[in-house]
């Protein structure tokens, strides 16, 4: 029983800190820490810095420009990034489609796509969900019909995160309607500039343009853009989802959000005293901090078990549920902490370069919107109910 880092791991942490001290642009960190919007340019600027250091593709084999981090090293990176205000990496290229291409793609696909993911030339988005296929993903209907050297794709994808910036989309499409739903799905890589593709924004309840609808109308996709075998896409999709699920618990992000909450509660007054000294509010903060402590140890237990050769399975599903509930509770408390100033929704105050007078203060400006935005946490990456189905089946055998 040993809950400490080894000397090598501590040295790695120092290396990470030195790198972030030196290279993380202050304006980007300020946006992240203040829950402000990041532009595509912000993301790409930071990606270049990471790639230059060789720390961008931490799931990839070294031969493709990746770096072999141990689970503990990845954890250290996550913790430190959250502390420093490193932008959350946009996972669709580097952490989602790339592992699938590396595992199931052919040599040409690897040569063509992986370098462009590293360089930032290709911004990827994910074409999984459809209006009629959410939690029941296998019921998807977007059709791809073979026609000579092409597939002709027709249908609609939705909840496409940051699709407005994307150059490429990886899609699950139906290539066979004669077999069981899961057995007729293929995994296609589609250029977003192909004629017949239309992207329409979906504005979320916080006024944010984060997700989109993507329409496909007789879109011609070369057959060489098929990954692996036709009709085997479901297997690749599931493989990808295991990558998506790790890290969804967001322990480091919750720690950062809790610090932000404490700052908010220290600066606001109730009955003439800082809110953080109010007995009932301080107990609410205490409760969520306690729960986060427990979840953080559960997270370390999973990491240590993977480090020791175990496979992260449905335990990550259990932690995704707990971790997202905790983060949502913190966002809830932050919203409560600003009292009536949760109501004003002054969008220009959300921009970092806003120079006018803040209605309340800069810390309060994004709080309510952020609370509403993060209701997504228990929905995406497999809703928390789906996670419970997974645990029920895989761990409990029910």
């Amino acid at each position: 029983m040993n809950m400490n880092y080894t000397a090598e791991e501590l040295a790695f942490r120092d290396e990470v800190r030195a790198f972030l001290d030196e290279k993380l642009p202050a304006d980007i960190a300020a946006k992240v820490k203040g829950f402000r919007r990041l532009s595509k340019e912000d993301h790409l600027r930071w990606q270049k810095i990471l790639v230059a250091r060789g720390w961008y593709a931490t799931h990839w084999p070294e031969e493709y420009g990746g770096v072999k981090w141990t689970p503990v090293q990845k954890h250290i990176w996550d913790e430190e990034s959250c502390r420093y205000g490193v932008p959350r990496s946009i996972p669709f290229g580097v952490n989602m489609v790339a592992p699938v291409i590396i595992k199931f793609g052919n040599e040409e696909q690897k040569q063509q796509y992986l370098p462009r993911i590293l360089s930032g030339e290709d911004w990827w988005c994910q074409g999984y969900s459809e209006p009629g296929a959410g939690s029941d993903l296998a019921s998807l209907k977007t059709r791809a019909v073979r026609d000579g050297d092409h597939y002709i794709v027709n249908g609609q994808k939705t909840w496409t995160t940051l699709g407005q910036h994307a150059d490429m989309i990886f899609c699950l499409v139906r290539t066979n309607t004669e077999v069981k739903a899961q057995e007729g799905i293929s995994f296609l890589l589609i250029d977003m500039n192909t004629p017949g593709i239309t992207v329409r924004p979906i504005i979320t309840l916080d006024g944010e343009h984060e997700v989109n609808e993507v329409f496909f109308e007789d879109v011609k996709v070369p057959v060489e853009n098929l990954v692996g075998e036709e009709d085997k896409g479901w297997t690749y999709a599931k493989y990808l989802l295991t990558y998506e699920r790790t890290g969804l618990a967001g322990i480091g992000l919750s720690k950062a959000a809790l610090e932000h909450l404490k700052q908010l509660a220290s600066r606001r007054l109730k009955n003439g005293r800082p809110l953080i000294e109010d007995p009932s509010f301080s107990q609410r903060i205490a409760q969520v901090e306690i729960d986060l402590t427990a979840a953080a140890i559960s997270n370390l237990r999973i990491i240590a078990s993977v480090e020791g050769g175990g496979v992260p399975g449905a335990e990550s599903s259990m932690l995704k549920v707990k971790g997202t509930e905790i983060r949502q509770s913190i966002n809830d408390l932050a919203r409560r902490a600003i009292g009536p100033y949760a109501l004003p929704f002054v969008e220009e105050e959300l921009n970092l370069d806003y120079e006018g007078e803040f209605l309340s203060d800069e810390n309060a400006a994004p709080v309510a919107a952020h609370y509403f935005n993060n209701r997504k946490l228990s929905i995406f990456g497999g809703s928390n109910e789906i996670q419970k189905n997974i645990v029920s089946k895989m761990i409990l055998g029910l």
Partner: protein
Amino acid sequence: MDFRLNEEQQMLQDTVARLVRGEYNFEKRLEFSESEAGFSEDFWKQLGELGLTAVPFSEELGGFGGGGVEVQSVMTELGKGLCLEPYLQSVILAGGLISQAGNSTQKEQWLAGIASGELKAAVGLQEPQSFYNLNDVDTRAEKSGDGYVLNGRKAVVIGGQCADLILVSARTSGDSRDSDGISLFAISPDTAGVERRVYPTIDGAKGCDITLNNVQVGTDALLGEEGKAADAIEYQTGRAIAALCAEAVGVMEVANELTLDYLKQRKQFGVPIGKFQVLQHRMVDMMSELEQARSMAILAASVADEEQSDERRRILSAAKNVIGRSGQFISEKGIQSHGGIGMTWEYNFAHYAKRLVMINHQLGDDDFHLERYATLLQAS
């Protein structure tokens, strides 16, 4: 980072597990519970013979200087069997208090017996008005001739019914709830003026309230410096909290196994009830609570024997808060998942459920520890 037990710790845990499996089935436990002692004298003797009561003590006392993790290994297995023996009271609390506060004569006099199990000790730290605040001491100890005279009442002394030695806190100076002025005395229950009102507890153990009526003790009964016992009491209570958390995890493990089993066996509407999603998700929540509890029990064990600090206080209160809530959750949802059978005395689940809820009533419940944590949070 490695959360596995080392080979010695694993052997220790296996030893206790084997013993509990062999000696402590459900029917026997009910007999032990109803016996006059309220536990199994024979099982206690075996714990002693195997060196298990000596685990936290030094080698001279037959132990191997076990820390939080070793104690955790023992307590988790005792929890799985819902064991009734006064391990927490005698070995952890009384043994710990004497080790920390006692002088060399007192240690010599009592520790070997506690470590071997031949001497059973209990602790009376709570009072009717104290709730969970152990600094709230109204029992008085007045200097008198060569010693002290004690007057007052100690509340819910688990294991007090069979103890050969009882450590009680009493005020030698200061006002109610002052941490300064609290002293510890080791008294024999046979001393004139010590009256025990013995009762069974709802979770199957036994305890007593103790009235001290002009109880005359010598100065040799005073443990540590007069008026300065609060630190030792807080520190050892912290060790006991970690131990209790470990016990709770053992109880929760079995409780969840029983509930899960029931979901697979019990059929209604022609299918096992575990096919119903509402019950599946509830079971997942119960497992998830257990994992949170396990994480906190591990964390608590890791600081149990560390030097006192606000960090240690915070972790122990956090752990007890989590254990209290998850225990009640697993208990209540488990009874609900079992339906009527979960309500019966004859079925073992109910006894696990009762123990889990009652653990929250020992050494401070989740509200008490949340308040304590919040106070520490503001101080930091």
